């Protein structure tokens, strides 16, 4: 028995089934995608090899770059508006003495709802004549805003809805980190005369930086692959104003049967996502020191 376990090939035998599955469901499709990205495959007739033709086309495709820009808006909105709000709400909820569980559940609720339901629900709230927002604005004599059908407002409307859906999930993450901080640290600061605000900014926030860093990274990754909320609420419209990379890719591949081009786009999306996450890791995440209490 001991002899067997010393043989490295035995271990290989143990991982073989997993490697097989991994290869079949991950490696093989990736290689296949890479190949189809180099063809003009339309899923109906034989694919012809066209080299980097699809990628060249993608670089000249203005609509694709508009969708990339929209994804960047998602990232900026997530990192600079959503994350600070997440921290703020987490700090507020961690400070309440009563009904903390209720608040936690309430903020978490949207993230367990299906995106389709959220899309339809917010669609009603944004409705030009019967929607909540316009009703509210009309009390102040403000003209109705065509939230989802005006190219100026549509993306913002989706950003808000998307933020509402996912903030609760991150708040619970950050909240767990805050509650894990030993009470003594805050108590010591309080004895030293630090105000609530000072304690939040100087004690709590630095201590939860590793979790915030993860939240930022998850937000970036989430913003890169966002598509469902867009498809449900506007399907990329009005006039392409809310098109994101993934919805553009789905449309090209499915609606027009340009599977070769669609695959090439998906490879580019992957590359862009990889690049951004790598940049974030190198520039910000590595600087984080390990927090030890």
């Amino acid at each position, binding site marked *: 028995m001991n002899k067997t376990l010393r043989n490295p090939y035995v271990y290989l035998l143990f991982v073989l089934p997993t490697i097989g599955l991994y290869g079949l469901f991950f490696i093989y499709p990736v290689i296949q995608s890479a190949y189809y990205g180099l063809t003009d495959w339309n899923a109906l007739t034989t694919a012809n090899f066209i080299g980097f033709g699809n990628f060249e086309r993608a670089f000249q495709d203005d609509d694709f770059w508009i969708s990339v820009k929209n994804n960047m808006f998602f990232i900026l909105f997530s990192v600079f508006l959503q994350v600070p709000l997440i921290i703020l709400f987490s700090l507020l909820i961690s400070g309440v003495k009563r009904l903390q569980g209720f608040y936690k559940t309430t903020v978490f609720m949207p993230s367990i709802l299906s995106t389709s339901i959220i899309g339809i629900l917010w669609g009603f709230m944004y409705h*030009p004549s019967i929607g909540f927002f316009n009703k509210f604005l009309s009390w102040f004599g403000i003209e109705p805003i065509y939230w989802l*059908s005006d190219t100026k407002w549509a993306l913002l409307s989706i950003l808000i809805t998307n933020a509402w859906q996912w903030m609760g999930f991150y708040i619970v993450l950050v909240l767990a980190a805050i509650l894990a901080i030993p009470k003594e640290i805050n108590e010591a600061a309080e004895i030293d005369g630090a105000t609530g605000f000072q304690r939040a900014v100087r004690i709590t926030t630095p201590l939860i930086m590793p979790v915030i860093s993860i939240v930022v990274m998850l937000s970036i990754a989430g913003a890169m692959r966002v598509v469902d909320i867009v498809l449900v609420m506007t399907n990329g419209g*009005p006039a392409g*104003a809310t098109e994101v990379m993934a919805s553009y890719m789905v449309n090209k591949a499915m*609606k027009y*049967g340009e599977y070769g081009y669609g695959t090439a786009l998906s490879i580019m999306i992957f590359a862009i996502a990889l690049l951004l996450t790598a940049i974030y890791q190198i520039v910000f995440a590595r600087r984080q020191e390990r927090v030890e209490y």
Partner: protein
Amino acid sequence: MKKKLLTTVASVVMLSSVLTACGGNNKNEASPSASASTPASNSPSESASAPASVERFDVSLRHIQIGELQKFRKAILDEVVKKSEEEVPGANFELDAVEDSFNRWTKLPAEMAAGNPPKIFDVFGGPAEGQKYARANKLLDLTPILDELGIKDKFTDTSTFNVDGKTYGLPLGASSEGWFYNKELLEANGIAVPKTLEELEAAFETLKGKGITPIAMGSQAAWVPFMLVNTLIARYAGPDIQAGVANGTRKLTEPEVVAAFAKYEEWIKKGYFTKGELGIDYTGQTNEFIAGKTAFLFDGTWRASTFSPEGVGKSLNGKVGYFAFPAVTGGKGDQTAVNYNQNNGYAFSSDVNDNEKAAIKAFIKNLYSEEYQVRGFKEDGVLPSMKVDASKLTSEDPVMKEVLANNAAAGTVFPHFDSLVAGPVNGEFEKQIQNLIAGKSNPQKAVEAIQQAQDKELAALK
């Protein structure tokens, strides 16, 4: 307690799987009782005449007749399915209702790519859809079936479903596109039914001045405003423009086409369409008109049944009129021409066995008959796609009467671009129309972009 719960759950799961298996056995035979009783029968003659046990088989049928707006068409489909099931022993049509544009742009293309389309499905003709699938050998060649049923010459036009002289799809009906108007709203505002483009525009202006939206429009899906643009182009550039652009003999950059786009842009800028149209879907557009919020609606003649006493828009019963797009001063070609489409119907998967083929044959025989063509027309305002005895095509419906009168007065007909051009060109058309609505394009830029897409397609064909 936990253990007890686990045991209960396990037994329920086991029991249900056993029962499901039993159910499955029953389902595979159409008449198990008949087959079981046959050997027990005493009289030999009786046993010989008893129906033999027939293997039950499913035939998947994808249709788009969903919701209140399509209820008449769904009733016809149900009847046809019932008849066909009775005629073909063992056939069980499995109806799968999918929303039109989702079926057209997402589900069916994906199924075609994966090689598993339903056996019978709703499809649009033209190079972007039906003909593309036919060329890829995904569709059943219907020519022998039509010959056998003797209905080959009964169809008025199957050209958008034809490839190399063979027919791969059958149009369910035909339609024209024109103006529906709310008689009450027009009367209340002292507007006579417009006879010329100038009168029509004057009507828009009057309504706008009184705070009424002139035209109901839901441009969330671009095919909806495309209907109006298609007709505008034909009025300005002549009824042969669609075919000309498709075969490369004419260009969308011709000044007449630009003028048509310019007119459309002018109407957008003057605010003649529903506000926020890019966020309104097709149903929303119909609802705007039914609610009496708008006076005009540019739509297909299939919409006529909506205003019947049983239709969704019954509140407007007897209060809706119809007229073809008026003549344009200086417009090229026949100004009485109307749009006429026979581009939507059923096609069938090429991957079928003999049983399924028999079911398909029965389905075609039953659906494509004079009876249903006439009923489709009377109940639902669908114009016939087959040669039907003209004396039977009378309608008591006031809107349909006007449709018929308008079409009878037409010198010629013109098709829709989407039945003649390839997918990417159609896509560019739709994109440019929406961009025009959003103020992100102009007529010249729009036609150049579409023509460029068409040039690319034509070059690829050479």
